[in-house]
């Protein structure tokens, strides 16, 4: 029996645009970067010391802009705080404001504690406007005795311990938002939160490799080969887990061949060929897998190792973005009639256009650059 294409009349619009792709992408980077900092602060992975501070500040800078794509997506952003004033207890999304603010506060406090010795030192020694900035940042707490630092270290560790589940909740919850939509067979799977969480860790590690290599290049310093190799190992391992889960989800759908598989298989083979098959799987998963396999070999020259790791990191970031795209946009390319498909012509301009998305993605990097002018991201006294 052949069937003609039919799209429900309210379905032609892709309601959740590239902004909803950016939102999990940015929160994923936050969660991933935080996990790297926690590997040092909680699990004492000393080899990651060169990137521990950078990881924390990266998490903070991206977290600061995580709500921006959502605000651009909302048709009534002026009512955004309703999500906290009149939350719906049955809605997973209503938890966002609380989870986000809790995590943001945690990050701000932890970053402040990590950089406190530097801030106090500079508040005491710098004069003029720079000195004023550091005196403000010190919040009037100039005590950096051994006892005070011991307390700081204890608090940093405690916050990092709380922060790990918080980061998992922040991002696992994002996956849950999609996984719990039973109306959409492309989204509705219990694996979705796990897939999002693991790919978040992948993206955070990949971003840190790139940022660290860029900072070293900018400062004309040799990157710490052991640190980069360790990051590459973590990236390789988490990438394998992430891709396995993504494929498992797909294979499960295909093997079950439920009532909606016909529309999902057409989606994959006709509408997501490039973004899923080529970008997410081939370029973003297979290539970095082999690059990292080589990069993590112990006897590889450091220069080649950093080059391969950097390249793999860039490709992995593309993979994770493509994964977000394929989930968010892909899930809206078919009508709920399950009889037809719609197009998503991504506009260049406008509130939810490509240029706005690019600007939003660049803003955390600008913030990171500004913070690096005030705080030493490449090393701190204790971090």
């Amino acid at each position, binding site marked *: *029996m*052949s*069937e*003609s294409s*039919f799209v*429900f*009349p*309210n*379905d032609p*619009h892709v*309601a*959740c645009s590239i902004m909803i792709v950016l939102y999990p992408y940015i929160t994923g980077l936050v969660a991933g970067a935080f996990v790297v900092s926690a590997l040092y602060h909680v699990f004492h992975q000393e080899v990651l010391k060169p990137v521990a501070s950078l990881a924390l500040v990266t998490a903070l800078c991206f977290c600061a802009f995580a709500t921006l794509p*959502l605000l651009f*997506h*909302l*048709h*009534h*952003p002026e*009512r*955004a705080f*309703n*999500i906290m*004033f*009149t*939350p*719906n207890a*049955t*809605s*997973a*999304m*209503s938890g*966002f404001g609380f989870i986000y603010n809790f995590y943001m506060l945690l990050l701000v406090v932890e970053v402040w504690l990590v950089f406190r010795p530097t801030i106090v030192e500079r508040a005491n020694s710098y004069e003029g406007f720079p000195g004023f900035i550091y005196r403000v940042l010190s919040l009037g707490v100039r005590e950096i005795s051994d006892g005070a630092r011991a307390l700081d270290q204890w608090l940093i560790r405690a916050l990092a311990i709380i922060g790990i589940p918080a980061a998992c909740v922040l991002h696992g919850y994002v996956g849950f*938002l999609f996984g*719990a*939509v*039973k*109306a*959409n067979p492309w989204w509705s799977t219990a694996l979705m939160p796990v897939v999002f969480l693991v790919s978040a860790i992948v993206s955070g590690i990949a971003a840190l490799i790139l940022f660290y290599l860029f900072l070293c290049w900018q400062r004309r310093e040799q990157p710490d080969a052991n640190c980069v190799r360790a990051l590459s190992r973590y990236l390789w391992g988490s990438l394998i887990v992430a891709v396995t889960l993504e494929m498992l989800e797909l294979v499960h759908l295909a093997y079950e061949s439920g009532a909606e598989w016909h529309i999902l298989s057409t989606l994959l083979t006709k509408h997501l060929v490039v973004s899923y098959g080529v970008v997410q799987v081939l370029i973003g998963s297979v290539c970095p897998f082999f690059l990292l396999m080589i990069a993590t070999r112990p006897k590889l020259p450091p220069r080649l190792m950093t080059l391969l790791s950097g390249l793999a990191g860039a490709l992995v970031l593309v993979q994770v973005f493509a994964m977000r795209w394929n989930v968010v946009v892909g899930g*809206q390319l078919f*009508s*709920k*009639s*399950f*009889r037809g498909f719609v197009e998503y012509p991504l506009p260049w301009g406008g509130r939810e256009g490509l240029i706005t998305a690019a600007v939003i993605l660049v803003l955390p990097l600008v913030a990171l650059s500004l913070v690096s002018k005030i705080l030493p991201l490449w090393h701190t006294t204790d971090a």
Partner: protein
Amino acid sequence: MPRKNDHTNRTCDDTNCKCEADEMQLRREFLQRIATVSFGAMTLTLFPALASHGGGEVVSKAGLAGGTPTTGNGPPIYGYLVDTERCIGTGKCLTACRVENEVPEGNYRTWVERYIHFKDGEVRVDLVPESGYSASDLPSVDPESVERAYFVPKTCNHCDDAPCNQVCPVHASFTSPEGFELIDYERCIGCAYCVQACPYGVRFINSETGTADKCTWCYHRVMRDEQPACVEACPVGARLFGRVDDPESEISKRIAEIPTQVLKEHLGTHPKTRYVGLSEEVT
């Protein structure tokens, strides 16, 4: 425990069983009311914004109980029945809805699907044009090639377990005491999560107001003891609306007499909009 929407075509033969069930139901309702009042008092204290709940456009058009007769202790319970065997695709309901509810072009609170099963096995689905078939650009159909054809009007299903209501992060989607799924347009942030959550594609972001929008079963009319605009406009009685808690109402009698179905039953949303003669091809 029977659901509100299908209790009319289910009976219990065991009198004792029925009495116990009734007693339990009364107890449950009593407890629910206490819980509602307590929670309401608490939340109104904590969140003053909640006090304005229901202050949206729809609710402000008519009081919640204004002009509506009630039986027993609770508010009246309504239902909607679509008879696909009666619909002839005039499209009058579509125009009536658009005019009554000022629905912008390109958005749909209701629509009618035409299913054509051809003898060669092809199934064609298209929309009944609002302006009538003569003015539309739909391809003509050779009657000789058609095995069977029928029309399926669609509206919001006002589900008992509405996923749109569940996911709304700001409580802008809510259920009226009469069981209508409504939207507080002054609270909605336009996140479109409800649009994603609705399995039936009946929700949309209103291109003029920027809020979520959908069929309300013409709540404002029903509260004035009028029929929904689409029901009133249908010349063949394919759309039937009324009280399902009144066994003497026409809709209750129809539901009791003939088998009815709901859309996407496997999703467990328990729609209050029921269908007569729904084919399995309809999604």
